[in-house]
């Protein structure tokens, strides 16, 4: 029983991390890259605006950072909750 509730806490922490990561994922691509682009048009980046940069470069860089952050954080969570592989 004790093991199960421990696993449940691990899963809850994982879900929280996934939700935060996916909010950032959506914000940089659908947000900054598409829907919020008109709002960011005042910020100039090399001959165009920030929204264009996010659509063609920034979102990809943030995706990369997100995956590595998630992997690093999860591997730590595994150890904290004692669920890592041997």
């Amino acid at each position: 029983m004790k093991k199960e509730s421990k696993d449940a806490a691990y899963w809850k922490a994982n879900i929280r991390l996934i939700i935060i990561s996916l909010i950032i994922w959506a914000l940089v691509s659908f947000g900054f890259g598409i829907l919020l682009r008109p709002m960011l048009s005042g910020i100039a980046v090399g001959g165009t605006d920030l929204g264009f940069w996010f659509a063609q470069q920034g979102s990809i860089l943030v995706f990369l950072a997100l995956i590595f952050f998630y992997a690093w954080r999860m591997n730590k969570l595994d150890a904290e909750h004692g669920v890592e592989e041997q």
Partner: protein
Amino acid sequence: MDQFTINLIFVGASFALYIGIAIWARAGSTSEFYAAGRGVHPVTNGMATAADWMSAASFISMAGLIAFTGYDNSSFLMGWTGGYVLLALLLAPYLRKFGKFTVSEFIGDRFYSQTARMVAVICLIVASTTYVIGQMTGVGVAFGRFLEVDNTTGLLIGAFVVFAYAVFGGMKGVTYTQVAQYCVLIMAYTIPAIFISLQLTGNPIPALGLFGEHQASGEPLLQKLDQIVTELGFKEYTMHHGDTLNMVLFTLSLMIGTAGLPHVIMRFFTVPRVADARWSAGWTLVFIALLYLTAPAVGAMARLNITELMWPNGTNEQAVSVEQIESDPAYDWMATWQQTGLLGWEDKNNDGRIQYYNDADADMQERAAQEGWEGNELTNFNRDILVLANPEIANLPSWVIGLVGLVAAGGLAAALSTAAGLLLAISSAVSHDLIKGALNPRISEKGELLSARVAMAVAIAVATYLGLNPPGFAAQTVALAFGLAAASIFPALMMGIFSTRINNTGAVAGMIAGISVTLVYIFLHKGWFFIPDTNTFTDADPLLGPIQSTSFGAVGAMINFTVAYVVSSMTKEPPEEIQEMVESIRVPRGAGAAAADH
């Protein structure tokens, strides 16, 4: 040395390398055949997955699509990379923990239903086969252009090479071959881009050069590009012109479709540990990003170069003369590509010059009337030649012919690596899910390995035949492949992991609803079974508001989720042991044992 010999050396050397690797990494067991013995390092696996994923579409087509449309086609960049976030967070670690060989096996076990497994197998085979046809056609075209052999011979050579290393090497051979193919394709893509970026902006990194200064004019590159394309009546490159909702849904469909493509998901079965599956997705995206961050620069710079070549004295002066195209070496590529039928020009008004402009634009029609132009004279510019012709278009220094050979080898590497990955997905679906899973469960390991090889040989034969006789709808079927993967496989996998409540009836109902609605929507716009003129709507004026058929995968996925949820909540919850299985795949502890008891 002439161009032909150089192309031959580059392509021949790369092929010899692939076959050499396959002999070295020959698969001996089903585990090695399907999953490379699970002994592949995350970085190696990431590189192989990147080559697996980046097909002829990424290498050859994408920069061209961006070049001629601009910002609106950023969907390809965000969609085809953003899917990896979904894969890394929502699927890869859990599927690795589950520890079986195929995607359909997971769906069958999780939803304790042979029907669910078979529905998944059918989706997988249809999606993969349509994709393979595109790759084989690409192989034929690349051979035709660079080795001056006819399409059929080119395709047969390509099929033979894939056969040699995929059939004997299995996943192990394919994995190591794909590592070599990644190196070839990324060099072929980035080296010309670096020199073009240096030439135009002085910055050796194309992704930075794109936002840098155009040295010849002293203005920012993108501003200069916007200026010259609008002077010719085309839409501003950096601006948003299409429908916003459609762009969002198209991007989302590409993301979900990427995360649902079986040959990519399969790669995460091959890493040793659950933690490695997480890292592996990150490494895959690192290697993909090297190309994807470069692609928008390749597109914008090529568009600028082409426009300036057509208007050497500026867009307000006289256009390039026919005589210059025929005699100036900077225009040699135009004659070469004209022979392939992918590039064409015609001096309609017989003024000895080729005017390239948007003849549908009102302002340009006025200028045309004044100057006596009779329409756009660069009559045909196939988007697919942009990357292949890029070093020549930019008129790079004399050793450019070496780069052309490298680009040829790179394009072939991209097409062959993806074809091999897809063929592997098809053969494991046939031998593992269809034969061992349904028809003959008592088949020996040796028998299964043999049937996997036979299935792959048959798949290559079918793909070659269809590559030689393309069904005429090859381009549309890519939308179908993504739509299917997005509307069926991804939601089923995700619900299988994140919900203990979704049961067999719900999952099957969801998959069937998602696929059928998506299929009907595509057929309504592209014609029933892609037969021309049987469509009721067009993508210019779609059935549901602005939603084009290529963007419908995301809607199909939502239908799948909803139907599965509603049906499951009305029917019995899954048995105890299935709920326990779901709980167990959520924690990494004890991974590795799962595969052994199979």
